[in-house]
């Protein structure tokens, strides 16, 4: 059987059946006919949109630069092999704190980076949708938290999130569809630390099954979550929204790299140029949705510049590519007397959102959370070599006691700043497309947050009895913000419906629309926004406003 990464699998009226080792499901094919929607990217933004728009009766083609995997037969228990899930094309990273691109901020698969995400499925704190008004920093979202609360619910139901029976923070939320997973030894350290420091903790809401659902098995606690789940317990877009989209009549084009969006004389988008099977094709569409995440989305829009839009599509505000945000991902690690084997089970089973909801005692803006950790061996060796600068015998000795290592890692809010941005480099990739230059620097606010978080996590580890504590000070995760949504065309790229201000049939639907990133992992919010966008499109279609 051919590797999915080498050859197109979605063809001949069929697509891979992700619940089998080599089976197929029927798939609609539109050929070169004009379709209602071409969606570029099939991750947390594109996949829900494809499913819901197809179910509403629109003709939909969703393209992804990556392959269409069958997790049961394509995923190995091997960290190096599974790096095939990351987007590792050439990029230029600079700024004072160049972002390490790949594992925890981009994906190249049908299903996008949800195929290798850590499954942490959190809701924003309500005030984080209006940080400017409520908390005095950042910018407000054009969407109200109460509306988002309903869409969060929709996504939680679709992904069968397993979570605590009662969530300790924020307004009341409905019960998670499935119960929490048992805690591992690493999570126990977070629990003991939090109880020692007198703050709340809970079981992390996770997108991996604690009970069988359909053809998907419950989690077997294999621990390879962030390198691709080979049992389908993980509720990635690949095994949830994509099968739903196919069933509803959407076409998926795998290994299809979109290089340019074409605009017609009336200034509207008319389709996309994409590279597949070794040649360039053109797909006509009445609407184009860009869902490539916060680097590839602005890259495509910038690369699509034309005479009418010399600075890139949807860029009349000049904000396209600007306000790039990551999230802080610093960690504190220590050694436990007892065996931890933290790589067993999902990596982040216990969490505290205390510092997302508590505003006192901070000398900075923004919120953060921290979770228990479970790095796989290669990732751990990389942290020790890169983050702790160990090499040779000290590295070997530290690796020998890896089973006793235990740690806590933050996900922290980075504030939007126009100098943190994605632009185009003059270098080109294998398709002749200009590659992105990603410029990022941490500012004083982030540095203050990191100091506070590292000290606090260290205190927690001390309270839970860990020794030899050290701090990993240089890591980031997730992306957001390069095509922000807003109420004003002058200060945003898209409106609350993810529709670009400049070109009415051009939409952006992924993490790049985030005006602020909050202190939680973004995947649930991206999918909630996508569900809302789909509902809005259907409504606008009904009213003839498309």
């Amino acid at each position, binding site marked *: 059987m051919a590797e999915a990464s080498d050859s197109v699998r979605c063809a001949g009226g069929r697509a891979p059946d992700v619940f089998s080792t080599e089976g197929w499901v029927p798939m609609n094919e539109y050929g070169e006919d004009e379709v209602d929607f071409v969606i570029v990217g099939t991750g947390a933004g594109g996949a829900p949109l494809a499913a819901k728009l197809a179910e509403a009766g629109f003709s939909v083609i969703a393209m992804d630069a990556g392959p269409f995997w069958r997790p049961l037969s394509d995923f190995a228990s091997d960290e190096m092999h599974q790096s095939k899930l990351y987007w590792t094309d050439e990029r230029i990273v600079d700024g004072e704190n160049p972002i390490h691109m790949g594992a925890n901020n981009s994906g190249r698969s049908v299903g996008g980076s949800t195929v290798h995400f850590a499954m942490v499925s959190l809701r924003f704190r309500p005030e984080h949708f209006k940080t400017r008004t409520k908390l005095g920093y950042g910018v407000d979202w054009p969407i109200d938290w109460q509306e988002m609360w309903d869409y969060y619910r929709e996504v939680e139901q679709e992904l069968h999130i397993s979570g605590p*029976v009662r969530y300790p923070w924020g307004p009341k939320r409905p019960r998670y569809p499935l*119960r929490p997973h*048992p805690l591992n030894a690493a999570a*126990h350290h977070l*629990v003991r630390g939090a*109880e020692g420091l007198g703050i709340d903790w809970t079981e992390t809401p996770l997108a991996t099954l*604690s*009970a*069988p659902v359909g053809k998907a098995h419950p989690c077997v606690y294999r621990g390879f979550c962030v390198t691709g789940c080979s049992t389908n317990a993980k509720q990635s877009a690949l095994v949830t929204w994509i099968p739903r989209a196919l069933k509803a009549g959407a076409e998926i084009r795998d290994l299809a790299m979109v290089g340019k969006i074409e605009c017609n004389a009336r200034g509207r988008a008319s389709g996309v140029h994409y590279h597949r099977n070794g040649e360039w094709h053109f797909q006509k569409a009445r609407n184009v949705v860009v869902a490539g995440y916060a680097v590839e989305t602005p890259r495509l829009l910038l690369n699509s510049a034309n005479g009418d839009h010399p600075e890139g599509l949807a860029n009349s505000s000049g904000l396209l590519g600007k306000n790039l945000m990551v999230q802080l991902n610093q960690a504190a690690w220590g050694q436990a007397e007892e065996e931890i084997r933290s790589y067993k089970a999902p990596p982040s089973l216990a969490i505290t959102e205390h510092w997302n909801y508590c505003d006192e005692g901070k000398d900075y803006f923004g919120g953060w959370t921290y979770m228990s950790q479970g790095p796989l061996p290669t990732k751990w060796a990389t942290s020790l070599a890169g983050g702790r600068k160990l090499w040779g015998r000290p590295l070997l000795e530290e690796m020998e006691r890896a089973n006793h290592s235990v740690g806590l890692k933050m996900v922290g809010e980075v504030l939007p700043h126009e100098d943190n941005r994605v632009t185009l480099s003059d270098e080109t990739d294998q398709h002749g497309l200009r590659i992105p230059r990603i410029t990022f620097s941490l500012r004083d606010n982030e540095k203050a947050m990191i100091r506070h978080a590292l000290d606090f996590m260290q205190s927690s580890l001390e309270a839970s009895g860990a020794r030899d504590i050290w701090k990993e000070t240089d890591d980031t995760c997730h992306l957001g913000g390069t095509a922000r949504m807003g109420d004003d065309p002058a200060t945003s790229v898209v409106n609350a419906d993810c529709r670009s201000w400049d070109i009415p049939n051009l939409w952006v639907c992924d993490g790049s629309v985030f005006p602020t990133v909050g202190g939680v992992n973004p995947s649930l919010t991206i999918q909630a926004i996508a569900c809302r966008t789909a509902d809005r499109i259907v409504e606008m279609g009904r009213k003839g406003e498309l």
Partner: protein
Amino acid sequence: MEHSNVTVASSRLMAAGAAILGTSVFADSGLEHYRGSFRNPGMVLPIATSAIAVPLNMRRSMGSAARPGLGRAVDLVASIVGMAGFGFHLRNIGREPGGFRLINLFYKAPLGAPGAMVLTGLLGRASRRLQLGRPSPFTAKAFGAITVAGLVGTVAEAGLLHFRGAFHNPAMWLPLAVPPLASLSFARDLALGQPTGATRMLLGATAGLGLVGSAFHAYGIARNMGGWRNWRQNILAGPPLPAPPSFTGLAIAALGVMLLLPKRRRHD
């Protein structure tokens, strides 16, 4: 003569119930304590005790009254091991990070399970008592109360663990529907001192449900990664195969108590 026949039949049903319950304890504690690697040597006790209690009660259910001294000792030991087990399970949960939070009630040592060992001893004792002659109405009611308490405890255990499984299969509601109705109906019969057909039917359904439950659990095991081909792992990871027949054992014992209740309506 009729009375003593009824008493003998009641005794045999109580013993049969104890034997089924004991078998459930034997297999369930065997699997779960194996999964727990027998970390505490005491974890072999329920297996050893039920291994003796089951054949004893099987013989009683066939009418044997041999070696009453040994029988008394086994019944006593079963109850003590069960109560000690409850203590151990309580300690196991209490010293876990998070203590008595729901997560530990879900996944640590099940609080209700050792109760089945206690009940095996009590039902065995009741069966033995009935071998000696017809009990007073009060004693009969006390035996009934034991089975009701057992059913209530088993319902609570199934409820907690099926809640843990988020009732992902609607059939998971059945043990929360049928046995509680049977218990209520039986408790009413006990209070009024007269058996009803409805109770007999509901207890019969509860007994059947115990066996159906094992079939559902076998299906549940098949829904884990690798299904029955990977039985060595999935029998431990999936729903407990030997647990549901606890309902069968308790319902059969309750049917035995039913025989002791006077059949004719009293007009006084």
